[in-house]
């Protein structure tokens, strides 16, 4: 816990003069905002541990205000608001296996699968002869998200998308 927010340590460097006081230069990721910050502590300092855990969930549906997920083993359901879902909302339509991070038992963030398969619902037809030039055009996916795709993609095609950078990978 740092400044009231749960954080995960991404890097921890020991700074220690031979016979002197040791310090830890710590890089942490704020799990609420996703921002990375750097802080130094005397080695003897302690901070409150955040009660954070990751669970595997399946995305069920959204009612517009909440996104509903279920733990496949126990069928227990969790409702996450738009802040917790964040960018994951751009890539999930239902039945995807996601990781939900809980803080004090409440949804803190959602990590979608690295790759998802989504259908194109709208894109302009590619112009003839353009395929060889490797150009791209916008396409709208069934989740409403717009991605850049090659010119040969048509409406109705199902695409494989890398959710970590939002880029088109291939036709599914």
């Amino acid at each position, binding site marked *: 816990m740092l400044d009231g927010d749960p954080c995960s340590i991404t890097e921890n*460097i*020991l*700074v*220690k*003069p*031979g*016979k*002197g*006081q*040791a*310090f830890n230069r710590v890089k942490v990721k704020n799990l609420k905002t996703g921002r990375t910050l*750097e*802080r*130094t*502590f*005397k*080695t*003897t*300092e302690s901070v409150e541990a955040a009660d954070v855990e990751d669970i595997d969930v399946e995305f069920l549906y959204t009612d517009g205000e909440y996104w509903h997920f279920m733990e496949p083993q126990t069928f227990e359901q969790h409702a996450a608001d738009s802040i917790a879902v964040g960018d994951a909302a751009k890539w999930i339509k239902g039945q995807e296996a996601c990781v939900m991070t809980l803080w004090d038992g409440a949804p803190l963030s959602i990590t979608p699968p690295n790759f998802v398969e989504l259908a194109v619902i709208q894109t302009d037809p590619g112009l003839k002869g353009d395929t060889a030039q490797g150009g791209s055009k916008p396409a709208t996916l069934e989740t409403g998200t717009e991605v850049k795709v090659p010119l040969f993609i048509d409406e109705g095609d199902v695409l494989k998308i890398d959710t970590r950078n939002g880029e088109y990978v291939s036709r599914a």
Partner: protein
Amino acid sequence: MSESWQPAAGREIMQLRARMLKHIRAFFDQRGVLEVETPLLSSSSTTDPHLSSFSTRYLQQNLYLNTSPEYCMKRLLAAHGDAIFQICKSFRDDELGPVHNPEFTLLEWYRPGFDMFELMDELGELVQMLAANSGLDHSIQKISYADAYWQAAGINPHITSADECLNCALQHGIDKPVGLEDDVDEWLDWLLTQLVMPTFPADSFTFIYGYPQSQSSLAKLYKDRHGHTVAARFELLYGEIELANGFDELLDSNEQRQRFEHENSRRVALGLSSSVIDEALLKALQHGLPACSGVALGLDRLLMMLARVDTLERVIAFPFSRI
């Protein structure tokens, strides 16, 4: 890439390590310094509040792993008076990072009749010989703790305050660590690593000597040319990496006991357990230690420098991550 059962350091590094050890032994053999062995297990632990000993046991008896072989080597000095050296493992709990491994190799030696500057010269000759054998040519500079601080930070470390250190940090864009408040020594340690050491030339050796009295540990005290009482303690660095720490050794058993007790009270104030004081060392000092200087050199870090790599993992066959 490589599997975790395999060594982290390659064959060439192992060969370089073996060559380094051979050259060190030849260096001391030529100078008539006797190689000795002392136990790694000890019934006492270090009182230094900044070090933490591993503890273990023999049946019901509590024992500790040495953080350095210093105390037993001083008992040998008190008994025989010979110049001695030792290459051994030392252990420090809670020290792990790119240049820290909880178990590491130390070369420690003691020179009766040498003052701090004579021992610095001998250490300089040793590391330059080893560097030359690896085809490296490194210069050595010597600077007092006070001069190094003055040049890098504009602070006189022997009379500074926590407030002045804080202002200095702010001026130089250095953050204030959480938990660092009004302890001047802690501030000096912090600014030393963040502001002073980065001014040392990257590819050469630097000696710093004449530490603040409050950081004297097992060193004698003396008056520097400005009249400040300072510790006859030195360190050797390569770039910003500390390789060695040495003392013109304290001989007075009463003062040594007071320093142990003072360190123990600091441990308690910091919420650490107080350590078992080494009575055998105090008895040896009472019997009489010849005037001498001693130094401990971290051989894994020295090997890092010789091999031109920047983490200990590359020079230790099985570092902590693979045991």
